[in-house]
């Protein structure tokens, strides 16, 4: 009485087929990732050394290290974080905790989503107009970082809003019922429970900008600088631009060197990503509800 009918068998076959097809698609998906990482490590790893990481380029950038670019990228991302996090978090708190649900709020939310879709070269031109020229920061770390900050603002807002909305509404209501104001509720109950999500989400998103080239190219990153930047009003070298330069702009470049730069850049981003993912997993284990 448990023999398979023809329909059963046909279902079984279909299910196997689909499983194979979907699995195959997934395989195709990760193929490029493996190829890229493999090539980078294969060709780039021999170049990496203490000297490569901690000295500056020499001989018209065909030799020596990448320290000014590495430092520059870290600086750019840090300053961008400093600018975009307070602004983005404040905006997200307003939108999620205070803003009434009306057409105006919905319009703002729509604008944020669209802002996330603006091409980075457009942000770059905005950065030139606003920070380099109008605010007279010149081409500088400050102008470049602020451009990056504007570019990352939408994702910071979205990441923060998601963390805030993950805090159950019942907590807010319990707090309001005790006579707490909205702000007291946010400060005592909502933020302490959202802060880890906000932090890790924001680091994850902003660290991705380490690889951006267009927004910093016209606003603060330089091809080559003999000295390290002394303040945020100086220009800086950056890994992404440096990679562009050594791969396309310099004659007689040793073949391995650009791979080394790319490997450092991608490692930096992956390192920040895995740090924030690890932090998130650790903190999620300690979650309080």
């Amino acid at each position, binding site marked *: 009485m448990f023999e398979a009918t023809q329909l059963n068998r046909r279902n079984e076959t279909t299910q196997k087929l689909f499983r194979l097809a979907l699995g195959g698609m997934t395989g195709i998906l990760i193929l490029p990732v493996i190829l890229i990482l493999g090539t980078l490590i294969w060709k780039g790893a021999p170049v990496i050394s203490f000297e490569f990481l901690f000295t500056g380029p020499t001989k018209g950038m065909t030799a020596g290290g990448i320290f000014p670019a590495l430092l520059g990228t870290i600086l750019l991302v840090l300053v961008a974080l400093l600018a975009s996090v307070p602004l983005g978090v404040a905006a997200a708190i307003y939108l999620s905790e205070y803003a009434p649900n009306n057409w105006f709020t919905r319009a703002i939310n729509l604008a944020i989503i669209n802002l996330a879709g603006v091409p980075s070269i457009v942000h770059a031109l905005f950065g030139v107009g606003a920070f380099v020229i109008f605010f007279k920061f010149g081409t500088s770390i400050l102008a470049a970082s602020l451009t990056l900050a504007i570019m990352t603002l939408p994702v910071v807002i979205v990441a923060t809003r998601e963390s805030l909305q993950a805090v159950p509404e019942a907590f807010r209501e319990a707090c*309001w*019922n005790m006579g707490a104001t909205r702000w007291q509720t946010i400060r005592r*109950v909502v933020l302490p429970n959202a802060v880890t999500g906000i932090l890790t989400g924001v680091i994850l998103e902003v660290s991705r900008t380490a690889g951006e080239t267009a927004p910093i190219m016209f606003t603060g990153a330089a091809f080559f600088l003999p000295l390290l930047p002394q303040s945020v009003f100086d220009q800086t070298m950056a890994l992404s631009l440096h990679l562009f330069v050594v791969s396309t702009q310099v004659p007689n470049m040793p073949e391995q060197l650009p791979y080394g730069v790319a490997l450092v850049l991608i490692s930096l981003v992956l390192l920040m990503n895995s740090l924030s993912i690890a932090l998130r997993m650790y903190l999620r284990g300690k979650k*309080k*509800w």
Partner: protein
Amino acid sequence: MVIAPPQGVTTTERPVKLGVAGLRIRYGEQTALEGVTLDVYEHEIFGVIGPANAGKTSFLKAINRMDMFNTDMHVEGQITFNGLDTRKVRNVYGLRRRIGVVFPLPVGLPLSVYDNVALSPRLRGEKNRAELDVIVERCLRRAALWDEVKDRLDTLGSMLSGGQQQRLTIARALSQDPELLMLDEFSIAVDPVTTMRIEDVLKELRQEVTIILVTNLVQQARRLADRTAFFLDGRCVEVGVTEDLFTGEVQDQRTRDYVDGRFG
């Protein structure tokens, strides 16, 4: 036959803690509760019974002015607390502080046991640790929870059992030093033994605070409430001395049917 509109029992001259007149609550266009006129006296346990969706929770929300946080919710009519119109009080946060609320499912805030109870005093600006210690111990004792948690005040409130969490929320409500305590079907997620313990706590508290007890268990209203209101389908069917309602001295047949468990 015309039935007289429900009125507070007027045989006693007790001071009115909470006065409700012509209350109507709607969410958007949909009316959740209307035609409620009743008084709650000082130091009584006032029961509210009725089937689901009768408007009981909305009634409590209106008293605590929670419509402020929900743009959909509209409250008409008058609610007075200590004779003051709650729509017109200047400090609505101060009003809410004098009214403690306990929800159907315990909402243990993601804080330690201590911090849960100390939250309300801290919101008022109390920072002195010794003072807070006293308040926390007193409220936990009054909620019959102290003996069970006194050695682990630093554990998260959500690590306690369901019944303990519900008593924790009662302790938290008491830490507001409320004049009015409102409980919304508190025993829904609590075992019978804990329910009885909490009922004993409420009997004690009656000496000091006024209590509105919304309950899904009619027998609980009978055990505790001095007077009881029966809500049905968004209307207050009647208000009476609890014992009268349970012995059949009702103005409306539907009340008798509900109390006898014939529907609901």
